[in-house]
């Protein structure tokens, strides 16, 4: 039936996936932006202990973002 989302070949289904991907990727980019500002703040404060962890968190976020991007829709 038209409009139902249980068939992966339905255009509505694919559109919903792409929209979900956009929302999730926006979330990932927002988190990375936050991580970058915290990292710069720590660098300016001379508190370099947490910077490696923050960079790692950014890398993990990027990998997750890449995974979201590559999901087939």
């Amino acid at each position, binding site marked *: 039936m038209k409009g139902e989302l249980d068939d992966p070949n339905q255009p509505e289904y694919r559109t919903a996936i792409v929209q979900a*991907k956009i929302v999730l990727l926006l979330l990932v980019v927002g988190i990375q932006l936050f991580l970058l500002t915290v990292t710069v703040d*720590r*660098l300016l404060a*001379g*508190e370099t202990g947490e910077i490696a962890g923050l*960079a790692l968190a950014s890398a993990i*976020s990027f990998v997750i973002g*890449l995974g979201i991007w590559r999901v087939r829709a």
Partner: protein
Amino acid sequence: MNSEPGHVKDFPFQRAADGLVTRREYLKLLALTSFGLFLGNLGVAAAALFRREKPEPRIMVASVRDVPEGRSLNFDYPTADDPAILVHLPGGRFVAYSQKCTHLACAVYLDRKTGRLHCPCHDGFFDVETGQVLAGPPPRPLPGIELSVESGDIYALREKKA
């Protein structure tokens, strides 16, 4: 008679010729932004890793008798480009801090009326005994400087680690 508004004539817009961004292109752009932010974070981490430590010279700041109780003295530490402030606290103890406000690097001074360090640019206040933020926009305490008093002379030894 041409009924087109003036701005359309001046700036013609061809909707059909305009390349609209598709959802998939937008997704690609987001993925690239994510990669760019990751690279930026990596760059900051690399800058932190290869950051040169500032020198920590031992310098004489002043004689004890030069700074009466409740007064302050400006000096430079560790380099001539790093203004610092020495304060003689009531009770005889000396403390010193970087003079750059942690908000936007304006010079702080000792407000003798309130007994606090004051940044006049945006009304930031710091505790003179600890350097902690008391009020205003500064996000961090003032970096402290370790002092030593020897034979009536005050020496700056090193910056205190956060």
